[in-house]
């Protein structure tokens, strides 16, 4: 006990000494950290507090314990559908977009610089154009035979009647997944492009001497391990963007989607947060989404540790 106490005291002293030594570091991080706590941490904590209340923006919030969460899982069947849909979309779009952006970045790296820049812009363009690209998807997947896809399939004689891509609850999911993949080449892709450029050429030369035979080995043993920080970043981006899908479906098939076929957690959150203004309930949804992302992140970090072994 006594020994423990001394070591505690000693540890406190050491920490204090470390802190004194790191004063310049604290000064460096202070401007950002202050803003970060004021505009990010504080609002998030407030929102988590709201999730235990019946806050509706107009009236004073009352503490109602876990009622919001109980209601979500027991009484709100649409929320259960939303979880299911979110997971279906995220499982396809997350890893799909992640792998696709990495492979494209890898291929771009082999090209001459100017061509590489042009292709980077081209692949990033749909993400940069934002909601403007949705009108194009609407044109492609239009319900009548004037839509590109219907016209194409009809000309080939595969279908005789136009398919209601944007209204039939059997098909809207496919359309939303495709459109989400289309816009999934976001910031993660940019970081991959920049990260691959930073891999030292000397390592490839050394690898060739050490007996690396083909490009796949080169990729696995040299490129990927050298890019771990970017891979982490890309993974976090993929998780956050794929689990918060919803705006694409919103713009394409409307809100609410037919039969709630593409209703996601994000849509549910927006419904309560910015249409019904039931902030308490919306905050509970946001908190569950948050936990889901943390779980996904832990899983991915575990997988990424295996890279290059």
């Amino acid at each position, binding site marked *: 006990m006594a020994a423990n106490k001394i070591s505690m005291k000693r540890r406190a002293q050491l*920490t204090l000494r*470390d802190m004194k030594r*790191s004063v310049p570091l604290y000064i*460096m*991080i202070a*401007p*950002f*950290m202050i*803003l*970060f706590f*004021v*505009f*990010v*941490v504080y*609002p*998030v904590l*407030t929102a988590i507090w*709201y999730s235990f209340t019946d806050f509706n923006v107009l009236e004073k919030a009352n503490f109602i314990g876990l009622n919001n969460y109980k209601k979500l899982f027991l009484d709100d069947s649409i929320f259960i559908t939303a979880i299911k849909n979110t997971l279906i979309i995220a499982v396809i779009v997350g890893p799909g977009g992640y792998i696709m952006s990495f492979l*494209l970045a890898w*291929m771009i790296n*082999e090209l001459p610089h100017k061509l590489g*820049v042009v*292709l980077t*812009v081209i*692949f990033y363009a*749909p993400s*940069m*154009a*934002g*909601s*403007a690209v949705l*009108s*194009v998807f609407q*044109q492609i997947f239009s319900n009548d035979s004037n839509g*590109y896809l219907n016209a194409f399939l009809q000309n080939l004689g595969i279908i005789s009647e136009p398919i209601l891509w944007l209204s039939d609850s059997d098909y809207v999911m496919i359309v939303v997944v495709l459109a989400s993949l*289309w816009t999934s080449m976001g*910031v993660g892709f*940019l*970081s991959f492009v920049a990260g691959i450029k930073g891999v030292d*050429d*000397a390592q490839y*030369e050394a690898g*060739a001497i050490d007996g690396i035979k*083909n490009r796949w080995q*080169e990729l696995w043993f040299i490129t990927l391990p*050298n890019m771990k*920080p*970017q891979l*982490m*970043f890309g993974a*976090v981006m993929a998780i*956050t963007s794929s689990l*918060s899908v919803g705006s694409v479906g919103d713009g394409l098939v409307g809100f609410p989607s037919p039969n709630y076929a593409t209703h996601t957690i*994000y849509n549910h959150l927006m419904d309560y*947060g910015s249409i019904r203004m039931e902030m308490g309930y*919306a*905050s509970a949804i*946001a908190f569950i989404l*948050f936990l889901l992302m*943390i779980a996904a992140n832990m899983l991915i970090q575990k997988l990424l540790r295996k890279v290059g072994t």
Partner: protein
Amino acid sequence: MDIITKLRANYLKKKKSKLDFAPSVKKSERSFWGNVILGLFLLAMGFAFFFPVIFMVSQSLKPMNEMFIFPPEILVHNPTMDNYRDFVNILANTVVPVTRSLYNSLFVVVVGSVGHIIIASLCAFPLAKFRFPGSKFFNQLIVYSLMFNGAVTMIPNFLTIARLGFLDTQWAIIIPGFASTLGLYLMKNFMEQIPDSLTEAAQIDGAGYFRIHFTIVMPVVKPALVTAFIMVFQSFWTNTGASFIYAEAEKGFAYVVGQLASGNVAGVGASYKGIASASSVIMFAVPLIVFLIMQNNVVSTMATSGMKE
């Protein structure tokens, strides 16, 4: 000669000498057919990804009678700049003078992006390279903060901004934008790749943390800075929602361009369809130009080769 300059010169020399005496063993080469397949694949993917943008530009050049041909054609028969002219006319007749909104947009975007890069990179460096009491906690906090949906934190944020007296000023958008964690997280991940020997050498030679940051770290992670800059620039540029929330009176912001693009003004009525796509093109063109300028710059960085471990 100054110590830091000497250090940098040394590294440059090392890099150069490596180029002079490059070993004869090269990266493994791809076969001819590999090149053909890669080229065709990139061409196909490039077309698929750029199609929405081509469509958008072609829509904006169409005269009224071609706009509603079904199925829509990509090729414009009589290209016209009418849509752009009309768009400029609308801008010229808005309540808030267009010069004012242009100035507001530029001020917010430039001050916001540059300020964010400085503040966030200053914070990213200690978090990436040093261990000090609290550093692990801050690191975790930043990753988790990326995962909380912004929809429910709007109200606490509004209250904070009101209390700070930022309402109806540009700072209501700029200051919270500084605290965006995305750019910080990206820069931090790239900084983790800087070898300890480089920072330690500078420390032994008596350089302070700030000095190391600005003279060594910043140049080495230039690709990350560029990527982060594009990201923040884009998020400020498309941040039309915030200008609605934080401007109670008209004197604040009107991101007229943004409002038109998101269809709030121009979306009404069929005759505005062309104008809406013209404004989409303009909205898209600005980040695109910034992107091209910045990406082209990445190559001229004092490349990281020889600096990684």
